[in-house]
Protein backbone atom coordinates (compact mmCIF):
# COMPACT_ATOMS: atom_id res chain seq x y z
CA UNK A 1 0.00 0.00 0.00
CA UNK A 2 1.34 3.39 -0.90
CA UNK A 3 1.35 6.22 1.56
CA UNK A 4 -0.98 9.03 0.57
CA UNK A 5 -1.63 12.65 1.34
CA UNK A 6 -4.94 13.51 2.97
CA UNK A 7 -5.95 16.44 0.72
CA UNK A 8 -9.19 15.91 -1.20
CA UNK A 9 -9.36 18.87 -3.57
CA UNK A 10 -5.72 19.02 -4.65
CA UNK A 11 -5.72 15.80 -6.70
CA UNK A 12 -8.47 17.21 -8.90
CA UNK A 13 -6.42 20.31 -9.48
CA UNK A 14 -3.46 18.11 -10.44
CA UNK A 15 -5.56 16.03 -12.81
CA UNK A 16 -7.31 18.99 -14.34
CA UNK A 17 -4.90 19.71 -17.23
CA UNK A 18 -4.76 16.08 -18.32
CA UNK A 19 -8.51 15.59 -18.02
CA UNK A 20 -9.23 18.84 -19.84
CA UNK A 21 -6.97 18.03 -22.78
CA UNK A 22 -8.32 14.50 -22.89
CA UNK A 23 -11.92 15.65 -22.83
CA UNK A 24 -11.50 18.36 -25.46
CA UNK A 25 -9.17 16.65 -27.89
CA UNK A 26 -9.96 12.97 -27.35
CA UNK A 27 -13.39 12.34 -25.93
CA UNK A 28 -15.21 15.13 -27.71
CA UNK A 29 -13.86 14.15 -31.17
CA UNK A 30 -14.52 10.50 -30.41
CA UNK A 31 -18.06 11.37 -29.48
CA UNK A 32 -18.38 13.45 -32.66
CA UNK A 33 -17.16 10.54 -34.74
CA UNK A 34 -19.66 8.30 -33.05
CA UNK A 35 -22.43 10.77 -33.74
CA UNK A 36 -21.44 11.51 -37.33
CA UNK A 37 -21.31 7.82 -38.06
CA UNK A 38 -25.08 7.78 -37.81
CA UNK A 39 -25.72 10.89 -39.94
CA UNK A 40 -25.33 11.81 -43.56
CA UNK A 41 -24.34 15.35 -44.46
CA UNK A 42 -25.04 17.09 -47.75
CA UNK A 43 -22.16 18.20 -49.93
CA UNK A 44 -22.15 21.76 -48.57
CA UNK A 45 -22.32 20.74 -44.94
CA UNK A 46 -25.54 22.72 -44.50
CA UNK A 47 -27.91 19.99 -43.39
CA UNK A 48 -27.67 16.45 -42.20
CA UNK A 49 -30.08 13.66 -41.60
CA UNK A 50 -30.08 10.71 -39.28
CA UNK A 51 -29.49 7.55 -41.26
CA UNK A 52 -29.06 4.97 -38.51
CA UNK A 53 -26.65 2.23 -39.44
CA UNK A 54 -26.72 3.09 -43.11
CA UNK A 55 -23.15 4.40 -43.14
CA UNK A 56 -21.97 1.12 -41.69
CA UNK A 57 -24.16 -0.85 -44.12
CA UNK A 58 -22.67 1.11 -47.02
CA UNK A 59 -19.20 0.42 -45.74
CA UNK A 60 -19.73 -3.30 -45.43
CA UNK A 61 -21.26 -3.53 -48.92
CA UNK A 62 -18.39 -1.57 -50.42
CA UNK A 63 -15.82 -3.86 -52.05
CA UNK A 64 -13.24 -1.07 -51.74
CA UNK A 65 -13.54 -1.25 -47.97
CA UNK A 66 -12.83 -4.97 -47.97
CA UNK A 67 -9.99 -4.38 -50.35
CA UNK A 68 -8.61 -1.82 -47.94
CA UNK A 69 -8.96 -4.30 -45.08
CA UNK A 70 -7.03 -6.93 -47.03
CA UNK A 71 -4.41 -4.32 -47.98
CA UNK A 72 -4.03 -3.40 -44.32
CA UNK A 73 -3.60 -7.01 -43.24
CA UNK A 74 -1.11 -7.82 -46.00
CA UNK A 75 0.81 -4.63 -45.29
CA UNK A 76 0.82 -5.02 -41.50
CA UNK A 77 1.85 -8.66 -41.41
CA UNK A 78 4.51 -8.12 -44.07
CA UNK A 79 5.99 -5.27 -42.07
CA UNK A 80 5.80 -7.19 -38.80
CA UNK A 81 7.27 -10.44 -40.13
CA UNK A 82 9.98 -8.79 -42.23
CA UNK A 83 10.91 -6.46 -39.38
CA UNK A 84 11.01 -9.22 -36.78
CA UNK A 85 13.06 -11.63 -38.92
CA UNK A 86 15.74 -9.16 -39.90
CA UNK A 87 15.95 -7.74 -36.39
CA UNK A 88 16.17 -11.18 -34.80
CA UNK A 89 18.99 -12.19 -37.16
CA UNK A 90 20.91 -9.03 -36.37
CA UNK A 91 20.26 -9.30 -32.64
CA UNK A 92 21.47 -12.91 -32.51
CA UNK A 93 24.63 -11.90 -34.33
CA UNK A 94 25.16 -8.90 -32.06
CA UNK A 95 24.58 -11.06 -28.98
CA UNK A 96 27.40 -13.39 -30.08
CA UNK A 97 29.85 -10.56 -30.35
CA UNK A 98 31.91 -9.56 -27.37
CA UNK A 99 33.71 -6.46 -28.55
CA UNK A 100 32.06 -3.60 -30.42
CA UNK A 101 28.52 -4.48 -29.43
CA UNK A 102 27.69 -0.91 -28.53
CA UNK A 103 29.11 0.43 -31.78
CA UNK A 104 26.95 -1.96 -33.79
CA UNK A 105 23.94 -1.06 -31.69
CA UNK A 106 24.52 2.64 -32.29
CA UNK A 107 24.81 2.15 -36.03
CA UNK A 108 21.62 0.08 -36.14
CA UNK A 109 19.20 1.99 -33.95
CA UNK A 110 19.16 5.48 -35.40
CA UNK A 111 16.46 4.87 -38.05
CA UNK A 112 13.97 4.80 -35.18
CA UNK A 113 14.35 8.56 -35.04
CA UNK A 114 13.51 9.11 -38.72
CA UNK A 115 9.97 10.33 -39.38
CA UNK A 116 7.89 7.82 -41.35
CA UNK A 117 7.28 10.35 -44.11
CA UNK A 118 11.03 10.91 -44.48
CA UNK A 119 11.66 7.16 -44.55
CA UNK A 120 9.20 6.98 -47.42
CA UNK A 121 10.96 9.75 -49.34
CA UNK A 122 14.41 8.18 -48.78
CA UNK A 123 13.34 4.85 -50.23
CA UNK A 124 11.34 6.44 -52.98
CA UNK A 125 14.45 7.93 -54.56
CA UNK A 126 16.20 4.54 -54.44
CA UNK A 127 13.26 2.94 -56.20
CA UNK A 128 12.31 5.82 -58.49
CA UNK A 129 11.48 4.12 -61.81
CA UNK A 130 13.28 6.68 -63.94
CA UNK A 131 16.48 7.23 -61.98
CA UNK A 132 16.50 5.24 -58.71
CA UNK A 133 19.60 3.00 -58.61
CA UNK A 134 17.73 -0.03 -57.27
CA UNK A 135 14.99 0.33 -59.88
CA UNK A 136 17.67 0.58 -62.57
CA UNK A 137 19.53 -2.49 -61.26
CA UNK A 138 16.29 -4.40 -61.16
CA UNK A 139 15.59 -3.28 -64.72
CA UNK A 140 19.01 -4.54 -65.78
CA UNK A 141 18.16 -7.85 -64.09
CA UNK A 142 14.98 -8.08 -66.11
CA UNK A 143 12.49 -6.87 -63.51
CA UNK A 144 10.52 -3.92 -64.77
CA UNK A 145 10.08 -1.69 -61.68
CA UNK A 146 7.44 1.00 -61.64
CA UNK A 147 5.61 1.49 -58.39
CA UNK A 148 3.58 4.30 -59.96
CA UNK A 149 1.79 1.73 -62.07
CA UNK A 150 2.23 -1.62 -60.36
CA UNK A 151 0.20 -2.00 -57.16
CA UNK A 152 2.26 -4.90 -55.84
CA UNK A 153 5.48 -3.02 -56.32
CA UNK A 154 3.99 0.01 -54.59
CA UNK A 155 3.12 -2.26 -51.68
CA UNK A 156 6.66 -3.66 -51.58
CA UNK A 157 8.05 -0.13 -51.48
CA UNK A 158 5.94 1.00 -48.52
CA UNK A 159 6.64 -2.30 -46.72
CA UNK A 160 10.39 -1.81 -47.14
CA UNK A 161 10.31 1.79 -46.00
CA UNK A 162 8.12 0.98 -42.99
CA UNK A 163 10.18 -2.06 -42.04
CA UNK A 164 13.46 -0.16 -42.34
CA UNK A 165 12.30 2.28 -39.70
CA UNK A 166 11.07 -0.38 -37.30
CA UNK A 167 14.08 -2.75 -37.36
CA UNK A 168 15.93 -0.66 -34.79
CA UNK A 169 13.12 -0.99 -32.28
CA UNK A 170 12.81 -4.76 -32.72
CA UNK A 171 16.57 -5.14 -32.60
CA UNK A 172 16.82 -3.44 -29.22
CA UNK A 173 14.12 -5.55 -27.64
CA UNK A 174 15.43 -8.80 -29.12
CA UNK A 175 18.94 -7.99 -27.94
CA UNK A 176 17.63 -7.30 -24.43
CA UNK A 177 15.64 -10.54 -24.56
CA UNK A 178 18.68 -12.52 -25.68
CA UNK A 179 20.84 -11.05 -22.96
CA UNK A 180 18.22 -12.10 -20.42
CA UNK A 181 18.50 -15.76 -21.43
CA UNK A 182 20.47 -17.40 -18.61
CA UNK A 183 23.98 -18.34 -19.78
CA UNK A 184 23.80 -21.49 -17.66
CA UNK A 185 20.98 -22.88 -19.83
CA UNK A 186 23.00 -22.43 -22.98
CA UNK A 187 26.04 -23.94 -21.33
CA UNK A 188 23.98 -26.90 -20.17
CA UNK A 189 22.74 -27.41 -23.74
CA UNK A 190 26.29 -27.17 -25.02
CA UNK A 191 27.39 -29.85 -22.58
CA UNK A 192 24.44 -31.93 -23.78
CA UNK A 193 26.03 -31.70 -27.22
CA UNK A 194 23.67 -29.32 -29.01
CA UNK A 195 25.18 -27.38 -31.89
CA UNK A 196 24.92 -23.56 -31.85
CA UNK A 197 22.16 -23.73 -34.45
CA UNK A 198 20.20 -26.32 -32.51
CA UNK A 199 20.73 -24.47 -29.26
CA UNK A 200 19.14 -21.41 -30.77
CA UNK A 201 16.01 -23.16 -31.99
CA UNK A 202 15.47 -25.45 -29.01
CA UNK A 203 16.53 -23.21 -26.10
CA UNK A 204 16.90 -19.57 -27.00
CA UNK A 205 14.01 -19.08 -29.40
CA UNK A 206 11.37 -20.64 -27.10
CA UNK A 207 12.62 -18.50 -24.23
CA UNK A 208 12.32 -15.45 -26.46
CA UNK A 209 8.68 -16.15 -27.28
CA UNK A 210 7.25 -13.57 -24.82
CA UNK A 211 9.44 -10.91 -26.43
CA UNK A 212 8.52 -12.10 -29.90
CA UNK A 213 4.82 -12.02 -29.17
CA UNK A 214 5.06 -8.62 -27.58
CA UNK A 215 6.97 -7.28 -30.58
CA UNK A 216 4.46 -8.83 -32.97
CA UNK A 217 1.65 -6.87 -31.33
CA UNK A 218 3.67 -3.65 -31.21
CA UNK A 219 4.65 -4.02 -34.86
CA UNK A 220 1.10 -4.64 -35.97
CA UNK A 221 -0.05 -1.55 -34.08
CA UNK A 222 2.81 0.39 -35.65
CA UNK A 223 1.96 -0.77 -39.16
CA UNK A 224 -1.71 -0.05 -38.61
CA UNK A 225 -1.50 3.46 -37.27
CA UNK A 226 1.95 4.97 -37.51
CA UNK A 227 2.80 4.38 -41.14
CA UNK A 228 0.44 7.00 -42.45
CA UNK A 229 3.38 9.24 -43.29
CA UNK A 230 5.17 6.56 -45.31
CA UNK A 231 2.13 5.96 -47.48
CA UNK A 232 1.13 9.59 -47.83
CA UNK A 233 4.61 10.73 -48.81
CA UNK A 234 5.25 7.97 -51.36
CA UNK A 235 2.20 6.33 -52.95
CA UNK A 236 -0.75 8.34 -51.57
CA UNK A 237 -2.62 5.08 -51.33
CA UNK A 238 -2.17 4.30 -55.00
CA UNK A 239 -1.88 3.20 -57.64
CA UNK A 240 -5.61 2.60 -57.62
CA UNK A 241 -6.31 1.62 -54.03
CA UNK A 242 -3.44 -0.82 -53.77
CA UNK A 243 -1.75 0.82 -50.77
CA UNK A 244 -4.81 2.36 -49.12
CA UNK A 245 -4.83 1.02 -45.59
CA UNK A 246 -7.80 1.50 -43.29
CA UNK A 247 -6.21 4.47 -41.53
CA UNK A 248 -5.30 6.07 -44.84
CA UNK A 249 -8.85 5.55 -46.05
CA UNK A 250 -10.31 7.38 -43.02
CA UNK A 251 -8.22 10.39 -43.95
CA UNK A 252 -8.79 10.04 -47.67
CA UNK A 253 -12.57 9.68 -47.46
CA UNK A 254 -12.86 12.41 -44.86
CA UNK A 255 -10.58 15.12 -46.22
CA UNK A 256 -10.30 14.31 -49.90
CA UNK A 257 -13.63 12.59 -50.57
CA UNK A 258 -15.49 14.72 -48.00
CA UNK A 259 -17.67 11.75 -47.06
CA UNK A 260 -17.86 12.66 -43.39
CA UNK A 261 -20.41 10.05 -42.37
CA UNK A 262 -18.50 7.24 -44.05
CA UNK A 263 -15.20 8.43 -42.62
CA UNK A 264 -16.73 8.67 -39.15
CA UNK A 265 -18.13 5.16 -39.41
CA UNK A 266 -14.65 3.96 -40.33
CA UNK A 267 -13.22 5.84 -37.35
CA UNK A 268 -15.65 4.06 -35.06
CA UNK A 269 -14.66 0.67 -36.44
CA UNK A 270 -10.96 1.52 -36.08
CA UNK A 271 -11.46 2.61 -32.50
CA UNK A 272 -12.96 -0.79 -31.87
CA UNK A 273 -9.89 -2.45 -33.39
CA UNK A 274 -7.50 -0.31 -31.35
CA UNK A 275 -9.47 -1.11 -28.21
CA UNK A 276 -9.14 -4.80 -28.94
CA UNK A 277 -5.42 -4.53 -29.61
CA UNK A 278 -4.89 -2.51 -26.45
CA UNK A 279 -6.64 -5.16 -24.41
CA UNK A 280 -4.53 -7.90 -26.01
CA UNK A 281 -1.39 -5.91 -25.31
CA UNK A 282 -2.34 -5.33 -21.69
CA UNK A 283 -3.38 -8.89 -21.08
CA UNK A 284 -0.03 -9.92 -22.37
CA UNK A 285 1.82 -7.44 -20.23
CA UNK A 286 -0.01 -8.71 -17.16
CA UNK A 287 1.27 -12.16 -18.03
CA UNK A 288 4.76 -10.87 -18.57
CA UNK A 289 4.72 -9.40 -15.09
CA UNK A 290 3.78 -12.78 -13.68
CA UNK A 291 6.64 -14.44 -15.52
CA UNK A 292 9.26 -12.31 -13.92
Amino acid at each position, binding site marked *: *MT*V*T*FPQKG*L*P*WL*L*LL*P*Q*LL*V*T*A*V*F*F*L*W*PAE*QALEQAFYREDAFGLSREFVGLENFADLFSDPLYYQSLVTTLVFSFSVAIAGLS*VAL*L*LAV*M*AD*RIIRGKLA*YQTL*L*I*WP*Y*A*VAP*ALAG*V*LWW*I*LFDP*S*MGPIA*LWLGAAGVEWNHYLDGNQAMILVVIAST*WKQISYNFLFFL*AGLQAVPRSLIEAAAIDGASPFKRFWTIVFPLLSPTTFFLLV*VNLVYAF*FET*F*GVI*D*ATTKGGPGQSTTTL*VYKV*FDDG*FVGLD*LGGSAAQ*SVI*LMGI*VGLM*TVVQFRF*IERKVQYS
Partner: protein
Amino acid sequence: MIENRPWLTFTSHATLLLGIALVALPVWMALVASTHPASAFGVGHIPLWFGDAGAATWGAVLFDKAGNGVDVPVWFMMLNSLIMALGITFGKIAISLLSAYAIVFFRFPLRGFCFWIIFMTLMLPVEVRIVPTFEVVANLGLLNSYTGLTLPLIASATATFLFRQCFLSIPGELVEAARMDGAGPWRFFFDILLPLSRTNIAALFVILFIYGWNQYLWPLLITTDDAYYTLVMSIKRMLSVTDGDIAWNQIMATTLLAMLPPVAVVIGMQQLFVKGLVDSEK
Protein backbone atom coordinates in the same frame (compact mmCIF):
# COMPACT_ATOMS: atom_id res chain seq x y z
CA MET B 1 31.04 -17.50 -25.21
CA ILE B 2 30.92 -21.19 -24.87
CA GLU B 3 33.17 -21.99 -27.75
CA ASN B 4 35.30 -19.99 -30.02
CA ARG B 5 34.47 -20.73 -33.62
CA PRO B 6 36.26 -18.18 -35.78
CA TRP B 7 33.99 -18.67 -38.78
CA LEU B 8 30.92 -18.07 -36.66
CA THR B 9 32.35 -14.87 -35.24
CA PHE B 10 33.29 -13.83 -38.75
CA THR B 11 29.75 -14.52 -39.97
CA SER B 12 28.35 -12.47 -37.11
CA HIS B 13 30.47 -9.47 -37.93
CA ALA B 14 29.78 -9.83 -41.64
CA THR B 15 26.01 -10.04 -41.12
CA LEU B 16 26.01 -7.02 -38.85
CA LEU B 17 28.11 -4.99 -41.25
CA LEU B 18 25.78 -5.92 -44.09
CA GLY B 19 22.81 -4.93 -41.94
CA ILE B 20 24.41 -1.60 -41.13
CA ALA B 21 25.18 -1.02 -44.80
CA LEU B 22 21.58 -1.73 -45.79
CA VAL B 23 20.22 0.46 -43.04
CA ALA B 24 22.56 3.27 -44.03
CA LEU B 25 22.07 2.88 -47.80
CA PRO B 26 19.20 5.36 -48.26
CA VAL B 27 20.93 7.99 -46.16
CA TRP B 28 24.14 7.56 -48.09
CA MET B 29 22.24 8.03 -51.34
CA ALA B 30 20.53 11.11 -49.95
CA LEU B 31 23.84 12.56 -48.89
CA VAL B 32 25.36 11.94 -52.31
CA ALA B 33 22.31 13.34 -54.09
CA SER B 34 22.46 16.53 -52.06
CA THR B 35 25.94 17.31 -53.38
CA HIS B 36 24.88 17.53 -57.00
CA PRO B 37 23.06 20.24 -58.91
CA ALA B 38 19.42 19.59 -59.79
CA SER B 39 20.40 19.04 -63.41
CA ALA B 40 22.36 15.90 -62.48
CA PHE B 41 19.13 13.94 -62.00
CA GLY B 42 17.58 12.63 -65.17
CA VAL B 43 16.02 9.61 -66.70
CA GLY B 44 18.18 6.57 -66.18
CA HIS B 45 20.73 8.48 -64.25
CA ILE B 46 21.47 9.25 -60.66
CA PRO B 47 24.90 10.16 -59.32
CA LEU B 48 26.46 7.52 -57.05
CA TRP B 49 29.41 9.47 -55.77
CA PHE B 50 29.73 12.90 -54.18
CA GLY B 51 29.53 15.92 -56.46
CA ASP B 52 30.79 19.43 -55.84
CA ALA B 53 27.51 21.32 -55.47
CA GLY B 54 27.08 20.36 -51.82
CA ALA B 55 27.70 23.78 -50.33
CA ALA B 56 25.42 25.45 -52.83
CA THR B 57 22.55 23.02 -52.27
CA TRP B 58 22.76 23.05 -48.50
CA GLY B 59 23.09 26.80 -48.43
CA ALA B 60 20.13 27.26 -50.74
CA VAL B 61 18.00 24.81 -48.80
CA LEU B 62 18.77 26.29 -45.43
CA PHE B 63 18.40 29.96 -46.25
CA ASP B 64 16.35 30.40 -49.44
CA LYS B 65 12.60 30.07 -49.60
CA ALA B 66 11.80 26.42 -50.01
CA GLY B 67 9.63 26.97 -53.07
CA ASN B 68 6.61 25.08 -54.36
CA GLY B 69 4.35 27.41 -52.45
CA VAL B 70 6.45 27.23 -49.31
CA ASP B 71 7.62 30.76 -48.76
CA VAL B 72 9.86 30.18 -45.76
CA PRO B 73 13.36 28.71 -45.64
CA VAL B 74 14.24 25.43 -43.98
CA TRP B 75 15.92 27.00 -40.96
CA PHE B 76 12.65 28.73 -40.19
CA MET B 77 10.69 25.49 -40.42
CA MET B 78 13.30 23.81 -38.23
CA LEU B 79 12.56 26.44 -35.64
CA ASN B 80 8.83 25.66 -35.91
CA SER B 81 9.57 21.95 -35.60
CA LEU B 82 11.66 22.65 -32.54
CA ILE B 83 8.91 24.74 -30.94
CA MET B 84 6.35 22.05 -31.66
CA ALA B 85 8.59 19.19 -30.48
CA LEU B 86 9.53 20.97 -27.25
CA GLY B 87 5.97 22.12 -26.67
CA ILE B 88 4.66 18.59 -26.98
CA THR B 89 7.50 17.15 -24.90
CA PHE B 90 7.26 19.58 -22.00
CA GLY B 91 3.49 19.61 -22.15
CA LYS B 92 3.21 15.85 -22.03
CA ILE B 93 5.77 15.50 -19.26
CA ALA B 94 4.19 18.24 -17.17
CA ILE B 95 0.59 17.09 -17.30
CA SER B 96 1.56 13.43 -16.99
CA LEU B 97 3.70 14.09 -13.93
CA LEU B 98 0.86 15.95 -12.28
CA SER B 99 -1.81 13.40 -13.06
CA ALA B 100 0.38 10.44 -12.09
CA TYR B 101 1.14 12.25 -8.83
CA ALA B 102 -2.57 12.70 -8.16
CA ILE B 103 -3.35 9.06 -8.93
CA VAL B 104 -0.55 7.53 -6.88
CA PHE B 105 -0.32 9.79 -3.85
CA PHE B 106 -3.92 10.76 -3.20
CA ARG B 107 -7.14 8.91 -2.51
CA PHE B 108 -10.25 10.62 -3.79
CA PRO B 109 -13.61 9.61 -5.17
CA LEU B 110 -13.68 8.66 -8.88
CA ARG B 111 -9.94 7.97 -8.83
CA GLY B 112 -10.45 4.74 -10.77
CA PHE B 113 -12.69 6.54 -13.21
CA CYS B 114 -10.05 9.18 -13.92
CA PHE B 115 -7.50 6.45 -14.47
CA TRP B 116 -9.78 4.88 -17.07
CA ILE B 117 -10.38 8.17 -18.86
CA ILE B 118 -6.64 8.56 -19.24
CA PHE B 119 -6.33 4.93 -20.28
CA MET B 120 -8.92 5.50 -23.02
CA THR B 121 -6.62 7.92 -24.80
CA LEU B 122 -4.46 4.91 -25.63
CA MET B 123 -7.34 3.60 -27.70
CA LEU B 124 -7.88 6.81 -29.61
CA PRO B 125 -4.76 7.61 -31.66
CA VAL B 126 -5.12 10.83 -33.57
CA GLU B 127 -4.87 9.08 -36.95
CA VAL B 128 -8.03 7.15 -36.18
CA ARG B 129 -10.27 10.10 -35.31
CA ILE B 130 -8.53 12.64 -37.48
CA VAL B 131 -11.58 14.26 -39.05
CA PRO B 132 -13.55 15.14 -35.90
CA THR B 133 -10.38 16.20 -34.07
CA PHE B 134 -9.62 18.58 -36.90
CA GLU B 135 -13.13 19.98 -36.63
CA VAL B 136 -12.82 20.49 -32.90
CA VAL B 137 -9.55 22.34 -33.29
CA ALA B 138 -11.01 24.39 -36.16
CA ASN B 139 -14.03 25.29 -34.01
CA LEU B 140 -11.75 26.44 -31.24
CA GLY B 141 -9.95 28.71 -33.71
CA LEU B 142 -6.64 26.96 -33.18
CA LEU B 143 -5.73 26.37 -36.84
CA ASN B 144 -2.40 27.95 -37.75
CA SER B 145 -1.19 28.41 -34.20
CA TYR B 146 1.46 26.87 -31.98
CA THR B 147 -1.28 26.00 -29.51
CA GLY B 148 -3.09 24.05 -32.20
CA LEU B 149 0.13 22.27 -33.14
CA THR B 150 0.93 21.13 -29.60
CA LEU B 151 -2.02 21.15 -27.24
CA PRO B 152 -4.12 18.41 -28.89
CA LEU B 153 -1.15 16.04 -28.80
CA ILE B 154 -0.05 16.44 -25.20
CA ALA B 155 -2.50 14.15 -23.43
CA SER B 156 -0.57 10.95 -22.97
CA ALA B 157 -1.58 7.76 -21.27
CA THR B 158 1.85 6.26 -21.89
CA ALA B 159 3.70 8.97 -20.04
CA THR B 160 1.18 8.94 -17.20
CA PHE B 161 1.56 5.18 -16.81
CA LEU B 162 5.33 5.45 -16.89
CA PHE B 163 5.38 8.02 -14.12
CA ARG B 164 2.80 6.07 -12.16
CA GLN B 165 5.09 3.05 -12.33
CA CYS B 166 8.05 5.15 -11.29
CA PHE B 167 6.18 6.73 -8.36
CA LEU B 168 4.89 3.38 -7.16
CA SER B 169 8.47 2.17 -6.83
CA ILE B 170 9.32 4.97 -4.38
CA PRO B 171 9.34 3.44 -0.89
CA GLY B 172 6.45 4.51 1.30
CA GLU B 173 8.81 5.21 4.19
CA LEU B 174 10.39 7.99 2.16
CA VAL B 175 7.03 9.67 1.81
CA GLU B 176 6.42 9.26 5.53
CA ALA B 177 9.83 10.64 6.38
CA ALA B 178 9.07 13.67 4.23
CA ARG B 179 5.75 14.17 5.98
CA MET B 180 7.49 13.93 9.35
CA ASP B 181 9.93 16.54 8.10
CA GLY B 182 7.00 18.82 7.48
CA ALA B 183 6.85 18.57 3.69
CA GLY B 184 3.36 19.13 2.29
CA PRO B 185 2.21 17.81 -1.09
CA TRP B 186 3.85 20.54 -3.15
CA ARG B 187 7.12 20.55 -1.28
CA PHE B 188 7.23 16.76 -1.53
CA PHE B 189 6.58 16.96 -5.26
CA PHE B 190 9.37 19.44 -5.94
CA ASP B 191 11.92 18.42 -3.29
CA ILE B 192 11.64 14.65 -3.42
CA LEU B 193 9.56 13.32 -6.30
CA LEU B 194 10.98 15.37 -9.16
CA PRO B 195 14.64 14.80 -8.23
CA LEU B 196 13.99 11.09 -7.81
CA SER B 197 12.26 10.85 -11.20
CA ARG B 198 14.82 12.79 -13.17
CA THR B 199 16.28 9.84 -15.12
CA ASN B 200 12.78 8.75 -16.05
CA ILE B 201 11.93 12.26 -17.10
CA ALA B 202 15.09 12.51 -19.19
CA ALA B 203 14.46 9.14 -20.85
CA LEU B 204 10.92 10.11 -21.66
CA PHE B 205 12.11 13.47 -22.92
CA VAL B 206 14.19 11.73 -25.58
CA ILE B 207 11.31 9.56 -26.77
CA LEU B 208 8.79 12.39 -26.76
CA PHE B 209 11.10 14.78 -28.53
CA ILE B 210 11.36 12.30 -31.40
CA TYR B 211 7.60 11.83 -31.33
CA GLY B 212 6.96 15.56 -31.41
CA TRP B 213 9.54 16.39 -34.06
CA ASN B 214 8.30 13.64 -36.36
CA GLN B 215 4.64 14.67 -36.33
CA TYR B 216 3.42 14.69 -39.91
CA LEU B 217 -0.31 14.35 -40.45
CA TRP B 218 -1.38 16.73 -37.70
CA PRO B 219 0.67 19.77 -38.78
CA LEU B 220 -0.14 18.97 -42.39
CA LEU B 221 -3.84 19.36 -41.65
CA ILE B 222 -3.94 22.32 -39.34
CA THR B 223 -1.35 24.60 -40.91
CA THR B 224 -2.08 26.45 -44.11
CA ASP B 225 0.04 29.46 -43.17
CA ASP B 226 3.74 29.12 -44.01
CA ALA B 227 4.62 30.79 -40.75
CA TYR B 228 3.64 27.61 -38.90
CA TYR B 229 5.00 24.97 -41.30
CA THR B 230 7.12 22.32 -39.66
CA LEU B 231 9.97 20.71 -41.54
CA VAL B 232 8.76 17.10 -41.69
CA MET B 233 5.38 17.99 -43.12
CA SER B 234 6.81 20.48 -45.58
CA ILE B 235 8.43 17.60 -47.45
CA LYS B 236 5.01 16.72 -48.77
CA ARG B 237 4.39 20.24 -50.03
CA MET B 238 7.78 20.31 -51.72
CA LEU B 239 7.11 17.00 -53.41
CA SER B 240 3.67 17.88 -54.68
CA VAL B 241 4.76 19.11 -58.09
CA THR B 242 4.59 17.46 -61.44
CA ASP B 243 6.95 14.57 -61.70
CA GLY B 244 9.95 15.84 -63.60
CA ASP B 245 10.36 19.08 -61.73
CA ILE B 246 11.30 17.64 -58.36
CA ALA B 247 14.56 19.18 -57.24
CA TRP B 248 15.96 15.97 -55.79
CA ASN B 249 19.15 17.48 -54.50
CA GLN B 250 17.19 19.97 -52.41
CA ILE B 251 14.60 17.45 -51.31
CA MET B 252 17.36 15.14 -50.09
CA ALA B 253 19.18 17.90 -48.24
CA THR B 254 15.90 18.91 -46.63
CA THR B 255 15.15 15.31 -45.67
CA LEU B 256 18.57 14.96 -44.07
CA LEU B 257 18.09 18.18 -42.16
CA ALA B 258 14.66 17.05 -41.03
CA MET B 259 16.00 13.80 -39.60
CA LEU B 260 19.18 15.22 -38.17
CA PRO B 261 17.93 16.54 -34.79
CA PRO B 262 16.08 13.40 -33.65
CA VAL B 263 18.83 11.11 -34.95
CA ALA B 264 21.41 13.19 -33.13
CA VAL B 265 19.36 12.90 -29.96
CA VAL B 266 19.14 9.10 -30.28
CA ILE B 267 22.85 8.67 -30.90
CA GLY B 268 23.96 11.28 -28.40
CA MET B 269 21.71 10.05 -25.63
CA GLN B 270 21.65 6.40 -26.51
CA GLN B 271 21.38 5.11 -22.95
CA LEU B 272 18.47 7.37 -22.08
CA PHE B 273 16.82 6.56 -25.38
CA VAL B 274 17.00 2.81 -24.80
CA LYS B 275 15.74 3.25 -21.25
CA GLY B 276 12.86 5.42 -22.44
CA LEU B 277 11.92 2.94 -25.13
CA VAL B 278 11.90 0.00 -22.74
CA ASP B 279 10.15 1.88 -19.93
CA SER B 280 7.37 3.29 -22.04
CA GLU B 281 6.36 -0.22 -23.09
CA LYS B 282 5.89 -1.49 -19.55
